[in-house]
């Protein structure tokens, strides 16, 4: 049996290879995600671990409930008295306060703020050289106006000792002179791509923490076991502090990056699941067709004494070999994918990871097992069918004709009805997901029935123009509904996902545009965020003030009010705080001025120091009512009990707790401002004048609603691109499926092709016939996919209507482009099979049979 299987395999190697490609891609994604996760995880852990190398125990302020003890939320500072307490703990050799805070934004020589994608921009206090930090040139800062910078920043900004450098912190932009440039012990310019500006300690405390005598953390050195010491220090300090060993702190520091790595891993795993699912279809299809062609051969084997289980074993063996080969190649490519991801992460973060490519021990076995199991499982059904061939079939030379589709259709109809019910019942996200899966399955099962008339409907307008090749291509496309269905299913799934995504993203864009243009409430917005003011805070996922919140001087607002054409202007301070145990962006402003500037309606006109105004959506979601008391904690750890004074209507610009004072905010300067113009005022002139006031502040821009729309479109578009690339691969596999079916069909139909050539079909017309069939299949699959995708997309938009997706938009142009691409891919898929069909030798096909 082994030899028979191998011979069979070699004779059909090209077609089997085609079926293996999808398994290959799936395994590639699986192994790529495993290897990338291990490599990046270890790399970043080592990188950031270095920063904590000399730290035995670290003490920081305790994060408020809901905040993370990681780098994303700044922790409340500690004071000198705490340092003294820690120093007195038994076993502590040395304890000192340090300042290491994200948010020192250096201004480059071009006048623009240096922006990093990911790594922090630290402001630190200079405490001399250490076993970690070594000066490369110059000396440490000794004057208030001196700083040392790390070599990473020097490289990015082209700075040298003696140069002036502007830095923006929680305070406005200030100019320093660079006294020295430092690197790290092992020759690195930065630990992980971050920039560092080292001030003298009092300046660091003032600029980064808002007052002298404050530290972001306390470093404890000791010879005692860190775990033991940690408990002692924690006991001595009591509640209100976070005490961690150096190792724990290091792990927390990498947590934010781990999140990104996990996200990449999840996307890759999702893609691999999709590729493997499509691979199952492809393998089932290929084996079914190959075995149908070998009916005579199989029956002969049965006739000369092979048992059913031997036939099944033979087919499974073939599948296992295909799966194994695909998995080995896929694993190799997976290593490449991981290397690519590592390179991307390194260039995005500007860091060099101190690791090569780490391949976890389980990765290779896991990849092989997945690949082989999926292939064998997919081949099982065709194998069982093949084994059911009766021995007498060897004597009958008849092609296997199409089977009935009654049961499939019935099940498909039931599933589709259930899907529609689930999608339209408004059951929230679980119902939505279930509905989409059911819809894909249901339509997949209905495809054989649909193919009978849908393919003809698609071909009808052009068939007459194409003549005989059109008629023949159309008939070939529908002659075996099951095969047609299995072929287009893969394409359908891919196109459905792409179309669904396009509907959702188009609706996202339309919704953002609608809320920006119809109820922005402000003609001009002063903001430090190119994508608009902080928002999304209503869901507790507020934009983290990661690299420091850009801010500007409040006097700008007062001067703006005095400009001709300005009806009103208001400033808003923001802080990443906590509202009743949930992370939440806090707003503080002169409430009546803000509400009137934005034209927001509220049931109260003023809010006193002990009260908070909540937007109606947050109020509803949290089940609060006016008069209730809530705990509001700022990022510096100031917690206050506030009375809910009332509500206001949430808008694009304002959604979250609105306070009347910014006490305890990390930055006591406005982060955004809103300008209301009198009707007919020259917006461009006001914008230019306000921009001129902000000229010295490179982080802050004045935007009109058109700019905000463009920025939000940009964000969505880049998200879209990533999804399109991944899903495009899924569609590509679907096209492979069509090519595969076409290639197999051509072999089956050799004699038909010969007959057609004999009775006068030209070679070009044979090409046309095969291409037309392929285009019909591709277009049918794509049309089904677009239909399912639009339905799923519309349902998603409806389900998310409460989450800011208020406007449904159907991207007709994009959807039409998908169909046009399907036509093209049909032609491409048919290219090789059609050429082979056109080369059919008339005599050998027809005359001797």
């Amino acid at each position, binding site marked *: 049996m082994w030899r028979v299987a191998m011979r069979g395999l070699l004779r059909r190697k090209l077609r089997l290879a085609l079926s293996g490609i999808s398994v290959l891609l799936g395994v590639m994604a699986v192994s790529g995600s495993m290897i990338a996760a291990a490599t990046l995880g270890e790399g970043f852990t080592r990188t950031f671990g270095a920063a904590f190398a000399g730290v035995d125990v670290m003490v920081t302020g305790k994060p408020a409930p809901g905040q993370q003890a990681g780098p994303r939320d700044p922790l409340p500072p500690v004071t000198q008295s705490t340092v003294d307490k820690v120093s007195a703990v038994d076993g502590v050799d040395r304890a000192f306060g340090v300042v290491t805070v994200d948010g020192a934004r250096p201004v480059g020589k071009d006048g623009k703020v240096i922006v990093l994608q990911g790594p922090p921009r630290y402001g630190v206090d200079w405490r001399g050289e250490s076993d970690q930090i070594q000066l490369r040139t110059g000396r440490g800062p000794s004057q208030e106006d001196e700083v040392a910078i790390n070599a990473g920043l020097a490289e990015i900004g082209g700075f040298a000792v003696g140069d002036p450098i502007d830095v923006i912190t929680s305070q406005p932009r200030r100019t320093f002179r660079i006294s020295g440039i430092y690197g790290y012990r092992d020759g690195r310019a930065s630990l992980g791509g971050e920039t560092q500006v080292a001030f003298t300690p009092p300046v660091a405390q003032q600029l980064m923490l808002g007052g002298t005598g404050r530290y972001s953390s306390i470093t404890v050195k000791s010879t005692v076991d860190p775990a033991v010491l940690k408990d002692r220090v924690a006991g001595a300090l009591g509640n209100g502090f976070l005490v961690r060993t150096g190792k724990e702190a290091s792990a927390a520091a990498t947590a934010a990056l781990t999140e990104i790595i996990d996200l990449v891993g999840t996307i890759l795993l999702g893609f691999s699941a999709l590729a493997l699912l499509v691979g199952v279809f492809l393998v089932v299809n290929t084996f079914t067709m190959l075995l149908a062609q070998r009916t005579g051969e199989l029956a002969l084997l049965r006739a000369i004494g092979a048992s059913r289980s031997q036939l099944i074993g033979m087919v499974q063996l073939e599948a296992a070999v295909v799966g194994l080969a695909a998995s080995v190649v896929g694993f190799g490519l997976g290593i490449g994918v991981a290397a690519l991801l590592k390179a991307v992460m390194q260039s995005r973060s500007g860091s060099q990871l101190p690791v090569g490519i780490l391949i976890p021990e389980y990765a290779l076995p896991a990849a092989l097992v997945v690949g082989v199991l999926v292939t064998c499982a997919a081949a099982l059904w065709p194998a069982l069918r093949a084994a059911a061939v009766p021995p007498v079939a060897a004597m009958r030379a008849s*092609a296997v*004709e199409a089977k009935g589709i009654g049961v499939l259709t019935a099940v498909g109809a039931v599933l589709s009805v259930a899907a529609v019910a689930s999608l339209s019942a408004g059951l929230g996200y679980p119902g939505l997901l279930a509905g989409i899966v059911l819809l894909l399955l249901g339509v997949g099962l209905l495809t054989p029935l649909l193919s009978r008339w849908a393919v003809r409907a698609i071909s009808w307008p052009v068939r007459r123009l194409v*003549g*005989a090749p059109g*008629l*023949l291509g159309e*008939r*070939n496309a*529908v*002659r075996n509904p099951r095969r047609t269905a299995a072929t287009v299913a893969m394409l359908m799934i891919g196109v459905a996902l792409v179309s669904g995504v396009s509907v959702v993203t188009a609706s996202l864009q339309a919704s953002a545009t609608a809320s920006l243009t119809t109820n922005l409430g402000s003609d001009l917005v002063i903001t430090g965020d190119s994508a608009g003011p902080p928002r999304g805070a209503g869901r507790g996922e507020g934009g983290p003030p990661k690299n420091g919140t850009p801010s500007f001087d409040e006097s700008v607002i007062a001067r703006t009010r005095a400009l001709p054409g300005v009806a009103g202007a208001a400033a808003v301070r923001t802080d990443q705080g906590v509202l009743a145990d949930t992370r939440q962006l806090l707003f503080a402003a002169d409430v009546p001025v803000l509400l009137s500037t934005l034209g927001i309606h509220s049931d109260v006109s003023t809010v006193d120091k002990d009260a908070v105004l909540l937007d109606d959506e947050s109020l509803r979601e949290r089940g609060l009512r006016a008069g209730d008391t809530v705990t509001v904690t700022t990022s510096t750890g100031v917690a206050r009990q506030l009375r809910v004074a009332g509500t206001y209507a949430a808008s694009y610009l304002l959604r979250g707790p609105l306070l009347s004072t910014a006490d305890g905010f990390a930055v006591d300067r406005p982060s955004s401002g809103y300008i209301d113009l009198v009707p007919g005022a020259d917006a461009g002139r006001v914008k230019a004048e306000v921009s001129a006031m902000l000229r010295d502040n490179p982080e802050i821009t004045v935007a009109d609603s058109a700019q905000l729309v463009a920025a939000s479109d940009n964000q969505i578009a880049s998200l879209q691109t990533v999804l399109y690339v991944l899903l495009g691969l899924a569609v590509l596999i679907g096209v492979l499926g069509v090519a595969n079916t076409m290639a197999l069909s051509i072999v089956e139909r050799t*004699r*038909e092709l010969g*007959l*057609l*050539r*004999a*009775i*006068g*079909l*030209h*070679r070009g*017309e044979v090409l046309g016939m095969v291409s037309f069939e392929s285009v019909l299949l591709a277009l049918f699959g794509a049309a089904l996919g677009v239909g399912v995708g639009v339905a799923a997309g519309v349902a998603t938009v409806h389900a998310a209507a409460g989450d800011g997706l208020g406007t449904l938009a159907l991207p007709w142009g994009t959807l039409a482009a998908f169909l046009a691409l399907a036509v093209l891919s049909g032609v491409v898929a048919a290219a090789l099979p059609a050429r082979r069909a056109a080369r059919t030798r*008339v*005599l050998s096909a*027809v*005359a001797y*049979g």
Partner: protein
Amino acid sequence: MTYALKTDELTKIYGTGEASVTALDKITLEIREERFTAIMGPSGSGKSTLMHCLAGLDGIDGGEVWLGDTALSGLNDRGLTTVRREQVGFIFQQFNLLPMLTALENITLPLTIAGREVDREFLADVVAAVGLGDRLDHRPSELSGGQQQRVACARALLPRPQVVFADEPTGNLDSRSGLDVLRFLAGSPGRFGQTVVMVTHDPQAAAFADRVVFLADGRLAGELHAPTVDGVHAAMRELEAA
């Protein structure tokens, strides 16, 4: 006297050099219009090769074939295809029909390919002659072998080709169905003015023809006009003994 088909020292050689085999050796033959001609010969005599060369299914290596006014030598694949499309009808031994088309669509397929209109009246005549009136909407898989071959006959005749070639048309049929097909072919010259050339090794089939041409070792080996079964038998025995 007009001829539907003429050859002048038609030669066909397979292979090259020492391994080459002369399948047809300078065959000169004339086939008159509106006649039913059978080509007979023992296995390997070259009768199928002759038919392929006459019908434009295969190229020729020497001499000339005239199909009506068209000379076939020197035609490339495209030219031969056009000749087959416009001047030739085929009936093969087996697998004659396209499974995804109905009987009617199979019959009209050559006209569809050529982009020509269907002559409804003539279609009705031909369909009536082959006796398929109520089966036209069926797929080949729903027809018996004899019915399928009669569909093939109708398909071959409908475009009114210069010559209909039949390659062992009864080889796969039971004797009754075979007789139906032979009667139809034999009646075609008189009924439709159709020239028919049939390759066969069956003396009973050959006896339906107006004329039988015998072939042996790639050369013409005599002929019979208005043959009888016994006459054909005798001629074949003679050839096989030689």
